[in-house]
């Protein structure tokens, strides 16, 4: 079930309330931003405004923190988040080629989301799976020992799956 906006707000508020009795309440900002991103998919302005009010932190500070850490998305992200590992081991084994292949296949640049909101392309520094280098992570799944061709195949599979899912949904609704 999709959560309604009110539910989402309530969930975040409950999460924030969990820290209220802690010493240095404000220091839990990053944890709260993580949670907000988990709930909403990315950090939107009104959510950060809510956090500012709830935690009594200036919005400029929250914005400063949200933009400092690369883990936080400030724009909506796609259904599948592709993180190409550019750690040394992967780099040495040709991660750049994988990256270029993805860019070409999806027609987007680093940090962007495809117009169909299916894929978001990001890079990451070492997923700790160096033995499988080069690797990429799609949502939580790690794909290893990649080649450009293999990567493109994987993306096409995801796209196919998503389209099938959408078709299924459309059918149900009919």
């Amino acid at each position, binding site marked *: 079930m999709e959560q309604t906006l009110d539910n989402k707000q309530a969930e975040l508020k409950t999460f924030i309330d969990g820290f209220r009795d802690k010493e240095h309440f*404000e*220091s839990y900002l990053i944890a709260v931003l993580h949670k907000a991103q988990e709930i909403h998919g990315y950090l939107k302005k009104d959510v*950060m405004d809510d956090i500012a009010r709830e935690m*009594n932190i*200036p*919005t*400029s*500070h929250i914005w400063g923190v949200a*933009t400092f850490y690369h883990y936080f998305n400030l724009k909506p992200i796609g259904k599948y988040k592709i993180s190409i590992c550019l750690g040394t081991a992967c780099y040495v084994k040709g991660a750049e080629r994988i990256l270029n292949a993805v860019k070409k296949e999806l027609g987007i640049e680093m940090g962007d989301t495809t117009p169909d909101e299916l894929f978001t392309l990001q890079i990451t520094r070492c997923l700790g799976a160096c033995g499988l280098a080069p690797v990429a992570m799609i949502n939580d799944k790690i794909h290893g020992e990649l080649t450009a061709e293999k990567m493109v195949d994987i993306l096409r599979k995801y796209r196919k799956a998503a389209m099938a899912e959408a078709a299924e949904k459309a059918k149900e609704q009919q």
Partner: protein
Amino acid sequence: METIAEKKMINVTVNNKPYKVGGNQTIMQALDEVGFRIPRLCYHPKLSIEGACRVCIVEVEGMRNYVASCAFPILEGMKIRTDSNDVRRARRDIVELILDNHPEDCHVCERDGNCELQRLAYSMGIRKRHFVGEKKHYEKDLSSPSVIRDPNKCILCGRCVRMCAEIQKVSALRYAHRGFHTVVMPAYNMPFSESVCTACGQCISVCPTASFVEKGNCMELFDKLTNPDIIKIVQIAPSVRASIGEAFNLDPGRAMEGEMAATLRKLGFDYVFDTQFSADLTIMEEASEFLDRLQGKGKLPMITSCSSAWMKCMEQFYPDLIDNVSTCKSPMSMMGSLIKTHFAAKNNMDPKKIFTVAVMCCTAKKYEAQRPELQVDEMNPTDMVITTREIAWMIKCAGIDFLRIKPEKFDTPLGVSSGAGVIFGVTGGVMEAALRTAYELYTGETLMDIEMNDLRGFKGIKEGKVVMDGKEIRIAVAHGLGNANEVLEVVRKEPDRYHFVEIMGCPGGCIGGGGQPYANSNSEPLNEACLKKRAEALYGLDRTRTIRRSHENPDVQRIYKEFLGRPLSALSHKILHTHYKAKEPRGIISKETKVR
């Protein structure tokens, strides 16, 4: 504060020569003490230590890396080198790196050569560039009526960020993003006008370059001045006369009252009035309002309302205190309101043809001028505000020999002022002026001891007591919005602690306003000695006035007789008073979060 004599003296060597310096301070402070002046950029004595620009590096024997002298403590036996070729070249390269990512438009820049970066670049000996590459490119933010933010000129020293958060506690500005892409900006990169910015302009004061400048109106004003169809009327704030000389390389502290009157007339204004007149009028209204409140008609403590930055701050940060704030308009707006009503009527002028200009020390006044709640008969009291810096530029641009001009008097009837009106420009001045009048109105006796030393000086928060007819009046004065926050927290918790509170948005009051001349090469922004001299100039004017109490100003008396009736009359309320309301976005003052 610890004085040098109280510090334990220690022995250090600087460039191989022995020195005795005070301990318990930074290397930079110690070097300052014995006559060195290490170049510096992100350092500001009133702000927290950032250690970011690395311009102030020195060599310390035994340490692998250079040491930022602003941040490192001086220690017994330290061997410091400020002059080796290596460290000099490193400093030079650091400044070049800053310069390499900075627009090269010095010859057309607002700072007019009075730029810390330019001075540094020259003194570091940067004559050639080695590392030129990509420069940052961002949009200018022109949204605010007061302040322009140009990230391209920003060198990320962070002084504005710390000023805004530490001294003003407004936190409109913060670093966002990181690395080469770091930008100082308001939350969400929103237009400045939609942020919590109070328009105080202190970011401009501390900015070493022209990353922050006021929204200029000079060209528009030149246009107006040459338009024969309108009546150009100007007023000038007290603190402008105390600082304008600095823009012409005079030492701080020269009061230039008559010179300003003459100059403004030369510039083409039809009438030259003095904000100090309306300051006297403000006192009449405000003192009366205070006495009313004291008698149970309204909330106490009463808080002053003349500082525009404070008023915007109040609406966003302290809407719960709206009823405590005096309903008086600022002297600038009172003047404008009078000009377009009484003065126009008396002289058979169409108020719509009058163009009112205020020369202010202040950028927030540009915002105030636009406030709809100040309008009289659907007219803005003030049509344009220009800062001290802008008028100085206009004088230069118009080719007026300011330094040799013959002083003239202000025009009547809105040009005569008492000493009380003069000291409005310095922290504590409004309170002092108000008490001079309130005392007499309340007790019927003239207050003889009118120089209130408790309320003078630059302590962040000043408290005092006055006994009027056996009643103890407790007062507080705060300058800078950070100090104000402390007093206001007290007001929130203990509403009975004070009867009367004066708040000025800028450090030092209007003399330290965000529109005042830039610090010159021998000083730094908001230098306390400089502020002191500006204050002295105003106190000096007060001392030489024969009339030093607002209610004794004959023109003020006349205007009540001819027009307003009495203070707080219905007409007064219509023309000279207003009401404020809460505004979005709401400001948040954090207890813990530091600037990072």
